[in-house]
C-alpha cells in the first residue's frame, strides 16, 4: 500500500512538499525554540490565514497572500520587539488573536467558508498543486541556503545576543532575516500541515531532540530526522485513513515527543 500510494501524482507532490517542509520547519524551528520564541510560529501561522482569506476572497492564489501577510507581520513584530521594548509574548498574543479575528471577518464577509478554507486550516494531501510545489521549491531552497549560510551566527545569537553583537555579528539584520525565513516557511507549510498545526512542526521536533542532551549540531540533525519521520508517517496515515494530513503529522510528533521524554527521563 505504501508503494501503491506513490503511484498517484497528488501523493508524489505531497511527499516532495512534505519532505522539504519537514527539513525547513525543524531547521528554522531550532533557532526560535532556543530563543524562547516558539509562539512566533503559531502567531505567524494565524497571520498567514489573513492572506489565505484575502486570496480566497479575491480569487488569487492564497499561498502568495499567506507569504505576503506573514512577512509583513514578522517584520512588524521584530520592529516592535527590538525598538519599542515591548514584551515579546504580549506582542505575539496581540498579533495572534488580532489576525485570527481579521481572517474570520474576511471569510464571513466573503461567505467563502468552504472545503478550500478547511484544507488551509488543517492541511490536505490533495491540495498540493504543481504551482505550490514550484513555490515551495524556490522559496524553500532560498530559505535553506540562507539558514545554512548564517547557521553559526544564528546559533551564537540564540546563545548570547549581546556577546554576539559585541563580537561584530550583525544581530539586527540577522534577526530580521530569521523572522522573514520563519514567515516564509510557515506560509509554505500550510498546504500540508495547515495554519492551526504548523507551529507544532516547528517546535515539537526541536523540543524532543533537546531531550537527547546533545550539542547543537546533533540536536538539529535529530530534530530534522524526527520531523521527516513524522511527516512521512503522517502523510501515509492521511492517505490510508482519509484524515487531514496536519492532524496525523502532529499526532506522530506527539508520540515521538512522549517517547523521547520516556527514554531520556532522569
Amino acid at each position, binding site marked *: 500500500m505504501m508503494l501503491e500510494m506513490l503511484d498517484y501524482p497528488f501523493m508524489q507532490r505531497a511527499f516532495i512538499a512534505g519532505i522539504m517542509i519537514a527539513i525547513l520547519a525543524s531547521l528554522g524551528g531550532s533557532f526560535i525554540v*532556543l530563543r524562547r520564541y516558539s509562539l512566533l510560529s503559531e502567531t505567524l501561522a494565524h497571520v498567514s490565514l489573513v492572506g489565505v482569506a484575502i486570496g480566497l476572497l479575491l480569487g488569487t492564489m492564497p499561498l502568495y497572500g499567506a507569504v505576503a501577510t506573514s512577512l509583513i507581520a514578522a517584520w512588524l513584530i521584530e520592529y516592535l520587539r527590538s525598538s519599542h521594548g515591548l514584551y515579546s509574548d504580549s506582542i505575539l498574543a496581540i498579533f495572534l488573536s488580532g489576525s485570527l479575528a481579521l481572517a474570520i471577518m474576511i471569510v464571513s464577509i466573503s461567505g467563502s467558508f468552504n472545503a478550500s478554507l478547511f484544507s488551509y486550516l488543517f492541511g490536505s494531501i490533495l491540495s498540493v498543486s504543481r504551482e505550490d510545489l514550484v513555490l515551495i521549491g524556490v522559496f524553500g531552497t532560498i530559505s535553506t541556503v540562507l539558514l545554512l*549560510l*548564517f547557521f*553559526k*551566527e544564528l*546559533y*551564537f545569537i540564540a*546563545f*548570547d545576543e*549581546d*556577546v*554576539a*553583537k*559585541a*563580537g*561584530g*555579528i550583525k544581530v539586527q539584520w540577522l534577526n530580521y532575516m530569521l523572522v522573514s525565513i520563519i514567515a516564509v516557511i510557515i506560509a509554505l507549510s500550510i498546504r500540508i500541515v495547515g495554519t492551526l498545526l504548523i507551529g507544532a512542526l516547528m517546535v515539537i521536533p526541536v523540543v524532543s*531532540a*533537546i531531550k537527547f*542532551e*546533545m*550539542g*547543537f*549540531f*546533533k*540536536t538539529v540533525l535529530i530534530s530534522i530526522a524526527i520531523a521527516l519521520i513524522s511527516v512521512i508517517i503522517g502523510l501515509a496515515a492521511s492517505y490510508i485513513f482519509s484524515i487531514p494530513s496536519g492532524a496525523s503529522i502532529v499526532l506522530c510528533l506527539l508520540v515521538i515527543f512522549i517517547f523521547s521524554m520516556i527514554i531520556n527521563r532522569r
Partner: protein
Amino acid sequence: MPLNLYPAIFEAKNLNFKKRDLTILENVSLQIQRGDYCGIIGPNGGGKTTLIRLLLGLETPTSGAISLFGIPIEQFKAWNKIGYVPQRSALIDSAFPATVREVVAMGRYAKRGLFRPESAEDRKRIDEAMVLMGVEDLRSRLIGHLSGGQRQRVMIARALASTPQVLIVDEPNTGVDVESQHRFYELLRILHKTKNVCIIFITHDIGVIAEDITRLFFVNQTLLTSTTPSEMLRCDEMSRLYGNPSHLVCHGH
C-alpha cells in the same frame, strides 16, 4: 610620562547617555591604553555596565564620541580584538544544547566570516583557549551541566579564542564559589602579565584585584575619578566617593 606609540584601545569624549529622559551617564571622558589592567568600580546603578555597553557599541550614546584602537566606533570592524564576558554570563539555561567545545568555538565566528568552514588555525586557537582555562577535559559536556565556576571558565575561554587584545569582564563572580574566584583572578593576572592582554574588570569588590590593577575608574553617573589605585584606594578617598565611612579589605590570592 611614557610616550604612547599606539592609539588608545578605548577613548571616550564627553559621553552622555539618557534613557527615557533619565540620565544614566553624564560627560564621561576616558582613555584606556594597551597594557592597562583597569578596575571599574562604583555603586549599583551607577552606570558601570552602561559605560561598557557604550564602549562596545551595544548602546548608542545620546552625545559624545567613542573610538576603538584610534578608529571611530561607527567605522570600527575588528571586533575580534575585544573579548567580552558579560554580567551573569555563568547563569545559562541548563537545557540549552551546546557543548563546551561549541561555546568556545563561538569566539572564532566573527573572525571566520561567511562561506568559511573551521580552519586549522581556528581549531588551534579553540584548543589553546580551552587548555589555558583548564576546560579541555569538559569539551564534550553540555554547558548547562557544569558548575558555576566551570561555566565561567568556558565563557572566558570563548572570549580568548578570538585572541583578543583586550578582555572585558563584568562582575564575573555571580554564582561562583570562592575557590574558582581565586583561580579566576590568577588567570587574569597571567593573561595580563604574560600575554599582554589589557584587562577591564568591573566589580564591587575592588579588594580582590587591588594588587594587580594599574588604573582605577570610579563611575557614579559620571566618571568621578580616574587615577592610580594606590591613590584612590586610600580609605578616606573611598569614603568620599561612596559617601560612607569605607574600609578597604585586600583579599589574599
